[in-house]
C-alpha cells in the first residue's frame, strides 16, 4: 500500500510537469523504436537468409584470373568428379544484364532441362522450350509483362532478343527472385555470346556435409587458379551483412544509441532547483531518504518502462506490419528493383533484453543518482538554496 502511494505521488509529480515529461517519453520511445527496428529487421533477415540459402549448392568453384572472376573450363568438371565424396558437378551459366529501358539490372540465370518444371512459388512454369523465360515479380512489374506475354532483352550485339514469358515468380519469393530472368542454358549462352566449353562457375554436390572443407581444399590443390566457395561461407556472408554490428546499420544503431545517451546524460547532470526544493520539503515533512529515492525510482521506471514498451511496439509494427518502410530507403541504395520486405517475425529475446538493460537501467539510474545528494542533505539547507 505504501509503495502504491509513493507511486501515486510520483505520477502526480510527473503529471505536474506533463509537457516536459511527455516530450521525454516521446523522444525516448522514438529512440527505442529506431534501435528496435534495426535489431528486429537485421535478425529477421539473418534468419530468413540462413533458412532459404541452405538450398544453395554445397560448393561453388569459380576461376580467378588476374584477381578477377573469369570463366571456368567445363573440362574441370571431369577431374572434380573424381574427388572422393563429390557427386554431381554442374556447370552454371548466369550473369547480369543492364536494362536501359528501366535503368535496372537483371540477373539472368540458365537452367537445365531436368525436373521439376513447376514450383509452388511460380505462376506458370520454368522454361523448357527455346526462347522461353520465367521472370521475377520485380522484372514483370518493371517491364509490364506477364505469363503469355513477351520480354525483349538487348544482347551484347545490340540486337533485341524476344523471349516468351512462361512463368512469373510470386511475391512470396521476391527476396530470392525479384530481379531474375530464368532462361534455358543454351539460350543464355547464345544471348551472352559465351565461348564454347566455358561456364561461369561449377556447382558441386558433396555427399557428406562434414567433408565440404576437405573437398574444397582438394579442389584448390587440383586447380590452384580456382576459388571454391562453400555453402557455409555463403551463409556466413549474410550473417555478417545482416549483423547489427556491420555496415550502415551499425551507423544507424550507434546514432540512436548516442541520442539516447545524450538524453540520459542530460538527466544525470543534475536536478532542477524546483525538484531540489520539492525534495527538501518532503524531507522536512517527514519523508525518509529511502522514501525520496523510491519516489525518484518510480518516476524513472514510469517514464522508461512506458517509453520502452511503446517504442518496442512501434518498432514491431514498423518492421513486420509496414515492411520497414522507413529503413528500406537506407538499405535500398541505388537499386531500381528492390523487393518489398514481407518479413516473418523472428525475434531474438536476448537482443530485446540487452536493449532493455542498455536503456531502461541507465535512465532509471540517471534519475535516481542526481537526487541522492539532495535526499541526504539537511532539508533546511536544501530549501534555502
Amino acid at each position, binding site marked *: 500500500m505504501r509503495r502504491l502511494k509513493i*507511486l501515486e505521488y510520483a*505520477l502526480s509529480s510527473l503529471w505536474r510537469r506533463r509537457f516536459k515529461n511527455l516530450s521525454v517519453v516521446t523522444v525516448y520511445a522514438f529512440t527505442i523504436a529506431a534501435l528496435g527496428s534495426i535489431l528486429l529487421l537485421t535478425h529477421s533477415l539473418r534468419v*530468413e*537468409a540462413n*533458412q*532459404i*540459402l541452405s*538450398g*544453395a*549448392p554445397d560448393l561453388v568453384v*569459380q576461376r*580467378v584470373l588476374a*584477381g*578477377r*572472376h573469369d570463366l571456368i573450363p567445363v573440362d574441370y568438371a571431369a577431374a572434380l568428379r573424381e574427388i572422393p565424396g563429390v557427386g554431381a558437378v554442374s556447370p552454371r551459366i548466369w550473369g*547480369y544484364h543492364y536494362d536501359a529501358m528501366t535503368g535496372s539490372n*537483371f540477373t539472368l*540465370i540458365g*537452367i537445365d532441362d531436368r525436373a521439376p518444371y513447376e*514450383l*509452388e512459388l511460380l505462376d506458370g512454369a520454368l522454361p523448357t522450350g527455346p526462347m522461353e523465360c520465367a521472370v521475377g515479380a*520485380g522484372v514483370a512489374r518493371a517491364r509490364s509483362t506477364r505469363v503469355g506475354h513477351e520480354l525483349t532483352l538487348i544482347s551484347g550485339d545490340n540486337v533485341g532478343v524476344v523471349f516468351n514469358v512462361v512463368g512469373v*515468380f510470386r511475391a*512470396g*519469393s521476391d*527476396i*530470392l*527472385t525479384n*530481379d*531474375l530472368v*530464368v532462361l534455358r542454358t543454351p539460350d543464355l549462352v547464345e544471348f551472352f555470346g559465351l565461348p564454347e566449353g566455358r561456364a561461369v*562457375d561449377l556447382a558441386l554436390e558433396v555427399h557428406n556435409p562434414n567433408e565440404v*572443407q576437405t573437398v*574444397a*581444399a582438394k579442389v*584448390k*590443390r587440383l586447380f590452384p587458379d580456382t*576459388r*571454391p*566457395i562453400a555453402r*557455409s*561461407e*555463403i551463409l556466413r*556472408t549474410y550473417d*555478417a*551483412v545482416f549483423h547489427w554490428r556491420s555496415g550502415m546499420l551499425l551507423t544507424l544503431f550507434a546514432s540512436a544509441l548516442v541520442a539516447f545517451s545524450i538524453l540520459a546524460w542530460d538527466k544525470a547532470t543534475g536536478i532542477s532547483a524546483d525538484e531540489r526544493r520539492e525534495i527538501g520539503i518532503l524531507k522536512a515533512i517527514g519523508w525518509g531518504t529511502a522514501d525520496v529515492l523510491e519516489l525518484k525510482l518510480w518516476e524513472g521506471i514510469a517514464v522508461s518502462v512506458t517509453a520502452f*514498451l*511503446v517504442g518496442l*511496439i512501434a518498432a514491431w509494427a514498423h518492421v513486420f506490419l509496414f515492411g520497414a518502410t522507413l529503413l528500406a530507403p537506407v538499405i*535500398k*541504395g*541505388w*537499386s*531500381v*528493383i*528492390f*523487393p518489398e520486405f514481407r518479413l*516473418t*517475425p523472428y*525475434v531474438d529475446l536476448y537482443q530485446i533484453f540487452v536493449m532493455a538493460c542498455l536503456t531502461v537501467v541507465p535512465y532509471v539510474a540517471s534519475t535516481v543518482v542526481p537526487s541522492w545528494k539532495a535526499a541526504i542533505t539537511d532539508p533546511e539547507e536544501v530549501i534555502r538554496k
Partner: protein
Amino acid sequence: MTAMAKHRVFLTLTLLEIGLLAGLLAQGRTAARRASAVEVPARRAVAQRLGLTDLALWTEARYTRHPSQADLFSAFQDFPSSLDHFPAGSVVVASGGLEAFQNRLTAGEGSARPCAD
C-alpha cells in the same frame, strides 16, 4: 481524477502494453512456425532448383547483388585508388571469414575450416 486513480491508470496501461507485446510475440512465434512449415521449404526449393547463392536485394552492382560470390576487388575496380561508390556497399561488408577461408585454402591446409568469430 479521484485520489489514488493515477497509479491505477498507469498500471492498467502498462499491463495493456505488456499484454499487447506478449500477444505480438506469440503471434510472431505462430507465424514463424507456419513459415518454417510452408513458406521456407517453398523458397528453399526455388533456391535449390535454380542453384541460387544470394538474395535478390541490392541490384546496383555485381558485388552487392552477389556478395557471397564477388571477389574482394570488385568494389574498387573502376580505377586506381577508386572507392566503393555504391550506397549498398556501406551495408554489404566483405566477409572477413570468407577471406580467411580462401587464405587457408591457398596456404594448403588439409582440412580448412572457416575462422571463428
